[in-house]
């Protein structure tokens, strides 16, 4: 801003009068730039709000579970808890493994072999989430005496999804096989899930 000390009289303007009219886009540009900058800044403040709704650190801290599977006999299964969700750990019998391997993979809705769903050297351990991939019910079959459904694996009572001995979807509305979480055997009888 020009001041009187600069030797400019109050009636004179520093910007030639014609300039404003000849170059009106200059002001539009500043306005658009300023509003766009403020708009982007405002929009970015939504990110922490959205991110705060993601699982918090204490929830994520539960994301690894250690299990001792030595007490599970062949043919038995247990229900454990992983990330507050049921986890099925099943010791398959040779007959169940043979039944799962006998199914042609191409006939499956979600084609996977049993070997792809277990760890090498621990082929008898089927470890899956106990969450039906349809709408999240807990299938039956891990507890003693529960209905294992027509394919001998798990059976979801909510809408009748039936899983086989590899935890693969065989019948009913569920779209995919029971999810296999990340896990590893740290010793022959101890498994760390997550």
């Amino acid at each position, binding site marked *: 801003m020009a001041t009187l000390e600069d030797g400019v009289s109050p009636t004179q303007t520093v910007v030639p009068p014609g300039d404003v009219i000849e170059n009106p886009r200059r002001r539009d540009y500043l306005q658009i730039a300023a509003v766009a900058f403020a708009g982007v800044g405002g929009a970015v403040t939504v990110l922490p709000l*959205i991110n705060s*709704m*993601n*699982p*918090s650190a204490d*929830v994520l801290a539960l994301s690894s579970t250690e299990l001792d599977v030595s007490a599970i006999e062949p043919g038995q299964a247990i*229900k454990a*808890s992983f*990330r*507050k*969700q*049921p986890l099925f750990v099943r010791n398959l019998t040779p007959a169940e493994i043979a039944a799962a391997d006998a199914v042609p993979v191409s006939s499956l*809705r979600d084609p996977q072999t049993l070997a792809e769903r277990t760890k090498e050297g621990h082929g008898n351990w089927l470890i899956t989430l*106990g*969450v039906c991939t*349809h*709408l*999240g*019910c*807990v299938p039956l079959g891990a507890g003693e005496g529960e209905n294992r459904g027509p394919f001998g694996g798990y059976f*979801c*009572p*909510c*809408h*009748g999804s039936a899983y086989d001995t590899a935890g693969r979807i065989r019948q009913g*509305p*569920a*779209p995919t096989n029971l999810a296999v979480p990340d896990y590893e055997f740290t010793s022959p009888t101890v498994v760390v899930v997550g």
Partner: protein
Amino acid sequence: MSFPWARHYEPKNPLTQWIDSRLPLPRFVYNAVGAGYPVPRNLNYFWNFGVLAGVCLVVQIVTGIVLAMHFHSSAAGAFESINGTIMRDVNAGWFLRFAHANGASMFLLVVYIHIFRGLYYGSYKAPREMVWLIGVVIFLLLMATAFMGYVLPWGQMSFWGAQVITGFFSAIPVVGEWIRVWLLGGYAPDDAALNRFFSLHYLLPFVIAGAVILHIWALHIPGSSNPTGVEVKGEQDTVPFHPYYTAKDGFGVGVFLILFSTLIFFFPDYLGHPDNYVPANPLSTPAHIVPEWYFWPFYAILRAFTADVIIPAKLWGVIAMFGSILLLFFLPWLDKSPVRSANYRPMYRIAFWVLVLDVLVLGYCGGSTATPTIVIVSQITAAYYFAHFLIIVPIISRLERPKPLPNSITEAVLGDAGGSRMTETALSA
């Protein structure tokens, strides 16, 4: 806007004059629901249900605010705070709790009748499309609020309802599972989910209240519709809202409260599910998960899809379920008939009642165990539901020959042999 013959607010004493010149709120109320709002003289009792829905909203907000003072929103404490503290220890807590739980059922019942009133009398047609669109938004907000409220007691049905409903989002390809985890704030419903549902359950009723103000504002631009569907032609066709419809609505509220109190005091658990008196157990699913009765028709549509056609059956179910409501947004443009009221539309009237029956059968299916018969009946009725809006209504509006309309509301009312009680009331005005 209002009709030119609407009465004007004239504050008589100095205090009301002083207020009116500074904040004309009493004037606003006078013009909205007072003597300053002229209403067609021939409204029947189906026009009570808008006001009744407003009463329900107030009942839910008032009882809800008091209940929130005693509720612990934590997975460890929620069940006990409702079934222990509120139901047994808090003074009149049982009453507030049953009023709030049954109030939700009454709210949805009233809203369903209100929606079907709109369908029968063509209230969604020009120039009231915006009233209808905002109404559908309110309905969606109401469903979200009711669902989140049902989760709060943290019983078995609460927990598994939350699991199943958030499971819908995992049907979305690629990002579905991420969205589900984000909505729950965890991998399964737990403290994080319960707390955010409580927060939103407290917020949404006020959003609904705001949407209701827009709904009424949009309604008052053209003014209320009426059973003939003929527009108001002059002063003789209307009566002032107050005292005529305040009195009539007051009577309706009385009848409503009799039914509501009967539920609260004699059948408080009739509409609930016994499994919700079992605390939530993340490791055991109830044998038969059902939502509350007001979601049954939509649950039946969800379950009607059993085969993968290009996309998985689960995704079809979710799309169809949301689609069945989103479809209502397009209704004003699907029904091209210029005649509003089904009283003058012989073919549409039949289609309307078939739709009512169809939705009732869908509701029955949604509340039943999914046996093969129930699934087939759901599939037929779900298909008919979509056919009604997408095929039958557009075709009828082309083929149908409507009955002759009365020249005016007054003619329709006075031409009625012997006249109705409505007529006499209006004449004495």
